[in-house]
């Protein structure tokens, strides 16, 4: 242990592993943003557990210097939840693709919202199944046809923000993988991590290889003079619930978020759609298990249990 420790920089969260994403993939921007967010919060790498699903996006943990669990397709959320339940001293971040999270994993996406466990879930939303060669993912809108698809999509896109609200996430936001300043996404992720409760960020991510519709160029366009991507705050939108004891405010903010979430096309809002500091699952657990508030589950003394009372009841 060194007495004086240098502050951590984003480079402290990188690994020497060869990154095998396509050149210019939007995922690069997200990895950097995660690293910057962790540096911003000065969370030591060994206190971070990254979980991922399967897809291009699923490879993320290998590129971040932190405990890394690259799980199964669609199963990142319950894995991350288990990790967090076992050790609430860990900063738990789950990442995965839009197919992984909103398609095969949508049941877990939905049910984690209700649980309000304190973890952060970042979905890399590129509109396609990247790793399986560009089929339409759930966020690709009806009628859209990327260069990788033989025919246009015939299903509606689903709305991740609305879904997250309906599921009960207490931090619901949207980011963009390649923001020019470079720190907007990092800051948003940092806020998500700091939020106590289930945080969800849908991150618009370019896939230059398969998605030729939502390209960097498209995102950077200014239809009718306004930049397509804008921050909700620019419009004075306020998604944070001020008084969580007031159900009316909660409902109003949720409805506002859903309404706003359908804005798409010429104007695409980024930032926090909704946030409320409600009791977390961990806090609720303390009501059942007083120890839960004092030490991580894995450190409890469970090796010397006395079951004689239980046995006695069976006589």
């Amino acid at each position, binding site marked *: 242990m060194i007495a004086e420790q240098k502050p951590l920089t984003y480079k402290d969260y990188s690994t020497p592993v060869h990154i095998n994403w396509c050149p210019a993939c939007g995922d690069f921007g997200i990895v950097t943003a995660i690293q910057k967010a962790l540096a911003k919060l000065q969370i030591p790498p060994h206190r971070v557990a990254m979980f991922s699903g399967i897809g291009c996006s699923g490879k993320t943990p290998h590129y971040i210097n932190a405990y890394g669990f690259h799980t199964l397709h669609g199963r990142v959320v319950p894995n991350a939840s288990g990790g967090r339940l076992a050790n609430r001293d860990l900063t738990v971040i789950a990442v995965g693709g839009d197919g992984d999270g909103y398609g095969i994993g949508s*049941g877990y996406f939905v049910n984690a919202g209700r649980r309000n466990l304190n973890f952060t879930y970042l979905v890399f939303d590129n509109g396609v199944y990247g790793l399986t060669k560009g089929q339409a993912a759930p966020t690709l809108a009806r009628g859209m046809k990327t260069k990788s698809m033989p025919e246009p999509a015939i299903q509606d896109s689903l709305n991740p923000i609305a879904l997250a609200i309906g599921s009960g996430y207490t931090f619901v936001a949207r980011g963009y993988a390649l923001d020019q300043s470079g720190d907007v996404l990092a800051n948003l992720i940092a806020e998500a991590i700091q939020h106590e409760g289930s945080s969800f960020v849908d991150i618009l991510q370019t896939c230059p290889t398969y998605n030729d519709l939502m390209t960097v160029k498209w995102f950077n366009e200014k239809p009718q003079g306004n930049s397509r991507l804008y921050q909700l705050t620019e419009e004075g939108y306020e998604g944070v619930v001020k008084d969580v004891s007031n159900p009316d405010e909660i409902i109003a903010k949720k409805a506002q978020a859903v309404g706003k979430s359908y804005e798409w096309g010429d104007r695409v809002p980024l930032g926090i759609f909704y946030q409320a500091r409600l009791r977390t699952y961990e806090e609720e657990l303390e009501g059942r298990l007083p120890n839960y508030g004092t030490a991580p589950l894995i450190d409890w003394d469970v090796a010397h249990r006395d079951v004689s009372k239980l046995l006695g009841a*069976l006589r």
Partner: protein
Amino acid sequence: MHKGDLTWLIGGPQGGGIDTSGLVFARYANRCGLRVFSNIEYHSNIMGEHSYYRVRIASKDRHSILDQVNVVVALDEETLIGDPHADFTSFKGHLQELVPSGVAVYDSAGKFKPSEATRSDITLLGVPLMDLLKEALRGIGREGDANRLRIMTNTIALGASVFAMGGDIELFAQVYRDDFKGARAELGEMNALAANAGYEYAAQQLGGRSPFDMKAIEAAVSNGHATGPSLLIRGMHACAFGKLKAGLHIQTYYPISPATDESVYLEANQRDQNLLVVQCEDEIASIQMAVGAANAGARSSTSTSGPGFALMVEGIGYASLTEVPGPVVFLWQRGGPSTGLPTRQDQGDLRFALHPAQGDFPHILVAPADPQQIFDDSFEAFNWADRYQMPVVVLVDKYLSTQSASLDELKMENLVIDRGSRYRSNGRANGAGDEYLRFAFTENGVSPRSFPGEEGGIFWSTSDEHDPRGHITEDAENRILMMEKRMGKLDLAASEIPGGRKISVYGPADADVTLVGWGSVKGSVLDAIELLAEEDGVRASFVQIRLLKPFPVEEVTAALSNAKRLILVENNYTGQLGGLVREMTGIHIPQKVLKYDGRPFSEEELVEGLRKALATGDARVHVSHLSA
């Protein structure tokens, strides 16, 4: 049949208190010092379908149920004569199961009319339950509560049955008094009163003579049992105790028969026992959450039955490939396939549990056969998971979960928790010279693991094939080494797990016939062996195969290869263990006795099946006495 044993049975509609009443009687008998074996049958239904609870009492430990009934308590007509209007049903009521001079206790104000009985060699003891209840309550000035307390008509009927069994009504009433304490003591007294009323009524109707004599059995209970009341323990209790003692941190589950009981029992005690029990959104979440927790350093487990297990298979393959220490998965089998018979018995999941995911991968599969074994295996399963860094599946079933048997003590000595090989960085940061490799190739294939949160212990893990660092690689040489590392741990486990945990052999070494089986058939087999010896002079032994993967090739070969004659006993359609034994040892078991009607083997059924197999030499004998 073991002569001298008595069976008491209560039947009626679900939701009508069958399980509570059955358990009261079983506990009463157990407290008398009798050796009790009891079990419940019920439908996948909340209210109305026929359910029944059998209590067998004996002077010695018994491990199976009997078809024959001495006293039946019928809470409805169907219990006695079946539902004559039902389509496609073979159940014709429990009256048929009564021994000659058996007694049927029923509500004389109910639907059943004695004329419907087709037997004259039994006693139909109609009891005016509500009238007696009212009268009893009148004695304490509570007649007006009779309707509200109508559930206590059950107690009246039970009281009557106690007389028919030749039991002691005071000891019986005491069970209620013990159950209702403090503020609820009055309820205990009222039940005691009701029990007495039923007893008196029966005494009067039967002319003061009980056809059966529980007390005689009581007197015959041999010494050697622990002093004080025995445990009356179910398999699911033993499992829960094993887990608690093993230092389980987290149990995840999704409700499903017949596994829910275990999780609910743990849940009810989580506060006192410092355990986290999480009800998940489904079984996929249950196992994945358990894997996530195990990766984070927790001892984790989950419990389910066939339909849930079918959703967990990807998790088992994943945990195995990534060398997660666990989770321990309890698979409480029920009647399959598919949703099947959710609340019924079957041993049909062996083959599925043996190879429950794609690819060649290691996991441990063990099938305990009685409460003590269940305790031992659920305890040890966590050590295996930690030591060999692989998931462990414990294969049990509905019958084991619900059967309650007298047991002097659950042995819990010399329990040693082994968390396996753990990496400690001692403050060194990752990459600082001595780089930590989570999946390092080691001599025995086990790589020390670190717990997330440990400085310097950072690692990666992936469901893709990976290098020692835990990063994806498709390299051919690494692949070969990793396959050998993982599969090699199975050989390690096989070499370290003691023989006594692998198989158990019962009966004489030079038996005329050797029965082979696994899991819950053990109880019926042991009872049958005894009977065959007594009644037929057949000297039979039994080889219980307990560890199913890694398969104890040598032990099984040694136990079976000199047998004079082999018969397989399984509670499933195909005789799955027989195939496994042949695959692993080449030994062909030429005869099978099977039962696949969704119920466990009764003693009579198995004895009949074995007699038939012995007499005919038939390759395949199946039995069913077609009860409800």
